[in-house]
């Protein structure tokens, strides 16, 4: 038996086909995959949009949340910075009043500005108050 006739003998053998259930499984799986991947572009687009917005965010605040009137070069002062600036102004004012008062003027003549801890500026809180200057 030469090579060709041996090959021909082999060629006569037929393989068994895959089980019928295999077709059902394969088509069910591929259908699910196609449905899944149909959503993928939209998910990717949404992810890109979120990443783009995050890149525009400045110090944790998104662009559209920042007040438009405040320029970016002058950030809003924090409450502590604002209080310190007010105290500084009051101290300067008290010093100026003291300097301009007559030398023999009574102590009550010179007005004093107080800052009360509870911000009410009420005389009943005088004991807790702090005299500036």
């Amino acid at each position, binding site marked *: 038996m030469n090579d060709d006739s041996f090959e021909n003998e082999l*060629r006569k053998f037929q393989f068994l086909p895959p089980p019928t259930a295999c077709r059902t499984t394969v088509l069910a799986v591929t259908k699910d995959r196609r449905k899944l991947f149909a959503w993928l572009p939209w998910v990717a687009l949404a992810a890109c949009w979120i990443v783009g917005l995050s890149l525009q965010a400045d110090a944790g605040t998104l662009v559209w949340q920042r007040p438009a009137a405040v320029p970016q070069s002058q950030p809003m002062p924090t409450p502590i910075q604002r209080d310190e600036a007010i105290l500084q102004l009051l101290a300067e004012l008290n010093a100026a009043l003291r300097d301009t008062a007559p030398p023999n003027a009574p102590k009550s003549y010179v007005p004093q500005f107080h800052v009360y801890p509870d911000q009410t500026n009420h005389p009943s809180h005088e004991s807790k108050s702090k005299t500036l200057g």
Partner: protein
Amino acid sequence: MPDLAKLYDLHAAALYAFLRQLTQSEADAQDLLQGVFVRLAQSKNRVQQVLLNERSFLLTVAHRLFLDSLRRQDSRARTLRAWETQSALFVGTPSESPFDAESLEVALGQLPPDQRAVVHLKIWEGQTLEEIATLLEIPVPTATSRYRYALQKLRKHLTPGVEAPPLRPASNQPTL
């Protein structure tokens, strides 16, 4: 997008036979067959390639999946597979055949997977050695020698009384 059901009906039997031949396991062949069609469903480019060169492309994907599965498979999986009950590989023995289907199945099982792949593609898919080399991503001389050695082993197993002719001289065919 072409109908995957139609592609399945056209090619699944051939792919399953090829995978069954490579894996020697019914369950693994079914898993890999499913893998081929899942890959096909994932990419439009792949579908275009299938349309251009249907069977060869699918066989290439099947072969790559088989190689991947070989790399992943541990010894425990191989042991478990050895205990699986396998259905026959062939429909039956053709009339007037000098050997039977069971002997052929045993003989094929004794070949290394590389040689089984080449024999299957040459005998049952009718591919040329050049096409097989492209499909399996190996040099043509390698495909040629694998085929010759495999055929010699099959002949020795299936027709023990008949002396096999010597390998053809390498005058017009490349060898290793």
